[in-house]
């Protein structure tokens, strides 16, 4: 493998568990595992079985490649609001919110999580592929006294699945956050994830990551799972992947993320691209993100053309539904549920239908 790739603090741990490592966003990451020993008794390994295990019990994902940072100082929330459409000032201590960095054209620079840890401290988690863009962008917009401190010395683990809450006694409601010990190690924990299941994301000092991961794996319900399962889980949950479903030319309205715009922010529209986004909200966006269900069993992958309508941005096979599923952008006129589409796969017409997302209902803690 390319020696210039970065590694996470769990690199050796993945390899010892039988991971197949692949390059992703500049990091060597596990795409799936070939389990042996105890883990093989829990799960066969491979994308399908890791995926199904997460939906049935619990799976542990290493997402340490993602960018973690602390935004701190008096007025930190107001400073971040200059860059995002979300209500950050109104975000209560102990709560997390999904938001977007936007550009002057209303495009999405990145999607990110913002957690209010109290005392003018906001904990941010951004995409691995975008941290080199996001961090300078945020840092440049800060008033004196507010600082952005990247946290490269922290790992990030996601424990996801219906058994997660029986393993970790964390924040009680979806999007709750707390600084608390997990398996005896002090962590920042949020009740959130990227699978549609109940679960937690756990920020832990890099030096303690392997100890924590092993202690979580000591629970019989848990297996490690790779990026392959993470991708098929988030697609079933209808969650966007930056770079596929979102980019600098996609607006929040087109992406179906209108709900991220805070009610108070709709008074002033004082965030980058606010006037463009407001116009789309009032008059309709030219295209919309939709769920797509191809007929039959042939998956339609990202990049598949939707005849006279648009393009598939994420697509694959749903292990839960045992059918192909996809998301993509189509013209507003054909974006209604039930609309028949024609995809072009390997030069052949593949009939498909616009369907609601998520494909698999979310099961978040309420």
């Amino acid at each position: 493998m390319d020696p210039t790739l970065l590694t996470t603090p769990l690199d050796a741990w993945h390899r010892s568990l039988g991971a197949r490592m692949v390059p992703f966003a500049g990091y060597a990451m596990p795409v799936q595992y070939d389990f042996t020993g105890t883990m093989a008794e829990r799960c066969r390994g491979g994308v399908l079985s890791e995926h199904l295990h997460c939906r049935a019990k619990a799976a542990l994902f290493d997402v340490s490649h993602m960018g973690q940072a602390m935004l701190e100082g008096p007025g930190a929330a107001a400073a971040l609001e200059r860059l995002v459409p979300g209500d950050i000032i109104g975000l209560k201590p102990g709560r997390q919110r999904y938001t977007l960095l936007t550009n002057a054209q209303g495009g999405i620079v990145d999607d990110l999580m913002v957690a209010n840890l109290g005392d003018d401290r906001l904990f941010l988690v951004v995409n691995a592929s975008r941290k080199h863009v996001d961090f300078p962008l945020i840092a440049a917009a800060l008033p004196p006294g507010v600082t952005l401190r990247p946290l490269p010395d922290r790992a990030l683990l996601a424990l996801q699945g219906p058994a997660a809450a029986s393993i970790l006694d964390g924040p009680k409601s979806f999007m709750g956050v707390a600084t608390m010990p997990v398996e005896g190690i002090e962590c920042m924990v949020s009740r959130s994830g990227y699978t549609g299941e109940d679960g937690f994301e756990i920020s832990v000092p890099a030096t303690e990551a392997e100890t924590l991961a092993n202690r979580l794996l000591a629970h019989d319900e848990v297996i490690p799972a790779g990026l392959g399962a993470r991708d098929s889980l988030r697609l079933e949950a209808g969650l966007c992947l930056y770079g596929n479903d979102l980019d600098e030319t996609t607006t929040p309205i087109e992406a179906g993320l209108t709900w991220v715009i805070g009610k108070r922010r709709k008074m002033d529209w004082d965030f980058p691209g606010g006037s463009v986004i407001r116009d789309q909200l009032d008059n309709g966006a030219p295209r919309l993100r939709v769920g797509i269900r191809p007929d039959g069993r042939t998956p339609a992958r990202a990049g598949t053309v939707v005849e006279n309508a648009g393009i598939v941005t994420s697509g694959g096979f749903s292990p839960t539904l045992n059918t192909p599923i996809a998301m993509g952008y189509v013209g507003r006129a054909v974006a209604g549920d039930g609309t028949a589409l024609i995809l072009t796969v390997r030069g052949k017409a593949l009939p498909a239908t616009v369907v609601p997302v998520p494909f698999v209902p979310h099961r978040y803690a309420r």
Partner: protein
Amino acid sequence: MAKKNADRRYTKDHEWIDLDGDIATIGITDHAQEQLGDIVHVELPDLERIVAANEACSVVESVKAASDVYAPLAGTVVEINETIVEDPAIVNNDAEGEGWFFKIELDDTDTFEELMDEDAYEEYLETL
């Protein structure tokens, strides 16, 4: 890889070929299925399709990606394995047996001998 069939031949596209008279049975190798991961869909060629050597005539879709399967030799498709369309996991479980893809009546059986034997294929795998 255990010695399974001294008469079996292989391609660099990771297909295996058995010959019985002038009928060649074609599948993907165990190495190929392992690299592909969980196979979720297979498209087979139409019966009686005339195929050229190295012509893409079948598709295997794993959870990760779609891959072509090639006709290793020229001929006519005379049989296809519908059971792997109904249950693609058979290809993962028994790629070099029950998971065969299709059979071709070869135009020229001499071409079979020009393909790699098991030792040559194993050597090839080590270069990857």
